[in-house]
């Protein structure tokens, strides 16, 4: 029996050697990735959704490759954005339902750091694969070959920003029974700058313009949301648990 095995001296010295930030971050990241890989079928859902939406557009327009090529950047970006949005509702909901979210916020580490770990896990399992398969779908839309790399880079940078901003919305709506639709209403207006710069940069790449400033701008948006979003999402999660 090990009950009550702690000693009071433990507690006093504990201040000197509290659990590390990195240890908590890594454990949460590993746990979330493991959970997502346990449910492999769900892992593929955003990718299938992405591919499906991209398939629908030519069917709704015309099989004209010049037309498709001209709208491909925006089309791919909008589809990827919707795929990320679709996966956001589950970001905190399972944890909220089974109470692990409560335990996460009770950890000694600042909530923002652990929330960031969850967001990184979300990006690794949605944004990253979306960016990786995007060239495949871009070929189907006859996007010029030389802009494929830029498409992937913008999606890599942009989807991380989308995950971060989306986490705020997911955290605000996690306590609501029908939060899914509301989540889109809250988040989509905030997504517009990412969409505009993401798709715009790909367009400029097709035209052969200088891209560094626009990629730097996307990096700046990522940095800003990296600073603010985990903190805001942590505050939102606290209030969702109170409600």
């Amino acid at each position, binding site marked *: 029996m090990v009950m009550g095995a702690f000693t009071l001296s433990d507690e006093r010295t504990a201040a000197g050697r509290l659990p590390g930030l990195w240890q908590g971050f890594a454990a949460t990241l590993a746990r979330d990735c493991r959970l997502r890989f346990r449910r492999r079928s769900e892992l593929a859902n955003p990718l299938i959704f992405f591919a499906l939406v991209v398939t629908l557009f030519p069917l709704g327009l015309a099989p004209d490759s010049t037309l498709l090529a001209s709208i491909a950047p925006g089309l791919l970006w909008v589809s990827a954005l919707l795929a990320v949005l679709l996966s956001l509702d589950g970001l905190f909901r399972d944890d909220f339902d089974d109470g692990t979210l409560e335990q996460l916020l009770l950890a000694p580490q600042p909530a923002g750091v652990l929330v960031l770990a969850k967001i990184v896990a979300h990006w690794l399992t949605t944004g990253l694969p979306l960016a990786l398969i995007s060239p495949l779908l871009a070929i189907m839309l006859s996007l010029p070959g030389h802009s494929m790399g830029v498409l992937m880079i913008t999606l890599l940078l942009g989807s991380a920003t989308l995950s971060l901003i989306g986490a705020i919305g997911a955290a605000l709506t996690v306590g*609501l029974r029908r939060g899914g639709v509301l989540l889109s*209403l809250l988040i989509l*207006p905030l997504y517009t*700058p990412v969409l*505009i*710069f993401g798709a715009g940069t790909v367009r400029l790449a097709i035209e052969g313009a200088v891209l560094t400033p626009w990629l730097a701008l996307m990096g700046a948006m990522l940095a800003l949301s990296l600073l603010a979003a985990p903190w805001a999402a942590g505050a*939102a999660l606290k*209030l969702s648990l109170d409600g």
Partner: protein
Amino acid sequence: MWPIIHKLGSPKWFYTMSGRWLPFLWGSGALLIIAGSVWGLAFAPPDYQQGDSFRIIYVHVPAAILAQSCFAMMAVCSVIFLVWRIKLADMAAGAAAPFGAAMTFSALFSGALWGVPTWGTWWVWDARLTSMLLMLFIYLGIMALRGAFASRDGGARAAAILTLVGVINLPIIKYSVVWWNTLHQGATFSITEKPAMPASMWLPLLLMVLGFYLLFAAVTIARTRNEIIRRQPSARWVRALAQGGRNGL
């Protein structure tokens, strides 16, 4: 600092004080708007290019300015509420939101009406109009989020957080939309950037903007007062208020 904040944050004190200001705000706001409208509609000279259709400016511009000011005011209230937990700030933010949304819609509607004679179409994806449209969606999101919570305190804090996220995002949205607009070489005609308006044109506009601000203050205060009564119908002073009719406070 602290006693002052708490005195300002006391609903009873606010109710009493604002009661004295309110008639003045209603009166002067209405007066300025009536004067500005008559001046702008009947006496200001027509624009040499746009003719009399330019008179829409006298409602379009004040509505657009108010839409943005209202958001700024809500953001300040949200900070006060989140940091100092003063509920009055939340009540004011909640009272202002529908007004801000209405002003945003008004600006869009009058902008669309103005668009027909100037651009020949109801809607153009002009940078101003587009960012205004996105701001309307953010307003609606804030209102919907507040309403979605079963607990009033939960909804209040959620709305405050979203307001702050929105206020950080609005300049970015605005900037990105402007960039997007130049990228696509769309309509570059902008409504309000006109060189050297004569005084007979901008004076009525000034009156209108001031009048709108005063009415905004009046509406927000009146709605906040209503919210106070709605939240604490059992407080002794509210009971006394209801007993004494409207002359008491």
